[in-house]
């Protein structure tokens, strides 16, 4: 499974990295760090945890590089490692700073360019915080599928490959996850998402 921009440059770097070329791997890290960090930040809700997990995931990927057969895009493989790492991190206890309902963790909520009035901006920020909180309340599988589709813009094929489930499961899980998120938002915001 490929995504635009993954081939051929990634493939060439992957081949070199598989041969033990740390510099090639470093270029892969630079290329993929934003998307991996971003997905992990939305998944775990804490910037420091996301940073730690991203670092561990890349180091882990380097160690497993010889096992990577190259039949999927590097990004697909990397997302899988990153999410697995996040689950292990939480299982091991991590720093256990799951985003709290009242949490105001810096960096979790990015600040898009916004020329609205300050009052509206605050409202927007509050709304984004609620969405992040609602995400944190979801089942991890639901969270993953939503992040990959809605935030990372991955195709169903890629999501199926990352999560190692049939494509049909991606469809139904996405519907279920959206329903669940809608319910959580209803509780947090007090109004239905729709």
């Amino acid at each position: 499974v490929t995504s635009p921009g993954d081939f051929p440059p990634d493939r060439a770097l992957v081949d070199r990295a598989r041969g033990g070329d740390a510099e090639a791997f470093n270029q892969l890290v630079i290329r993929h760090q934003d998307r991996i960090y971003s997905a992990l930040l939305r998944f775990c809700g804490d910037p420091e945890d996301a940073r730690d997990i991203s670092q561990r995931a890349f180091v882990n990927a380097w160690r497993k590089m010889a096992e990577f057969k190259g039949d999927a895009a590097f990004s697909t493989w990397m997302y899988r490692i990153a999410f697995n790492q996040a689950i292990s991190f939480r299982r091991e206890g991590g720093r256990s700073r799951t985003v709290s309902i009242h949490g105001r963790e810096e960096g979790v909520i990015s600040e898009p360019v916004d020329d609205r009035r300050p009052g509206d901006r605050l409202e927007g920020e509050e709304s984004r915080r609620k969405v992040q909180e609602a995400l944190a309340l979801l089942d991890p599988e639901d969270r993953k599928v939503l992040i990959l589709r809605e935030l990372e813009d991955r195709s169903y094929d890629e999501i199926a490959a990352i999560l190692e489930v049939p494509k049909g499961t991606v469809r139904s899980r996405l519907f279920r996850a959206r329903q669940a998120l809608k319910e959580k938002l209803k509780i947090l915001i007090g109004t239905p998402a729709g």
Partner: protein
Amino acid sequence: VEVFEMACGFDKGLLAAHYDGEADASERAEVERHAASCPECARDLADMKELTGRLRGLGPVKAPASLASEVAKEIGPRRASASSRRWMGWSLSAAAALFLAVGTVMVLDRSAPESPVAVAPDSLRQKDPAKAEEPRREEEFAAKAAPKPAPAAEKSKESAGPPVLVVSAIDPSKARAEVEAFLRERARAFAPPKDRTGKDDLDLTPYLEVELTEEESQILEARLRKLESVTVAKSTIDAELLFDRNQPGLAMKELDRRGRTAPTAPEAKKTEDSLGGAKAADSEQRSRLDKAPRRPVIFVFRQAPKK
């Protein structure tokens, strides 16, 4: 595959696929036909759109600036490319190399006449949490290395890491800026300098590891030498020793001694002359240089000892 149905009995997974543009033509037609007469599914489609808007409002996030360098630091120079590995000849295990390197340094020290110890900049001194224990450790290592001096020295030479260039300047930050400017000119963005210290609290990051061709290395050395009050000396100290967290004080002390006493290499002066002006050579040789093999070089910036 689970089929998600609600009150209306329609396959909601198909509804999601249609919304996400992942349904085929016949599926699309099926959904559109159904949604036209089903208020529940029409509402579901509207809700999905609303949710997408909210989720995308979270916006993209950039990874912390230091993430890639932290990863690079962790996977380490020992696992560099095959060509680098061959060049570096780091065939020994980390522990053995370190032991032999330290041993060599200690043995050479014992035979060399004692030179005055230079004053290390405060920023470097702060790096050493185990400063109080240095002398005792030094003695322990010397004692361990003493029984087999000759083979140890030989092995260490074979297993030496990247060359270390000790750049002493009244204002080391200017020397560092010169190196960084050179890297920018070379558009070495794909091989970013590795910050080996990762210490944000230091005004001056004293180490910089870069990958250069042999000629680039010479050009850069020549440029550095042109700066006011800058001396460049090649150090024979093992790079691994420099970055060993357990022995920082030992390495810095050794570096101080060698940085202070090592004379300016005559061959470097010759290189500068033969290039007939580094900048002119720079543009002419660029394409050729870019094809030449690169290897790691570690720059250590230090304050010039007070006279």
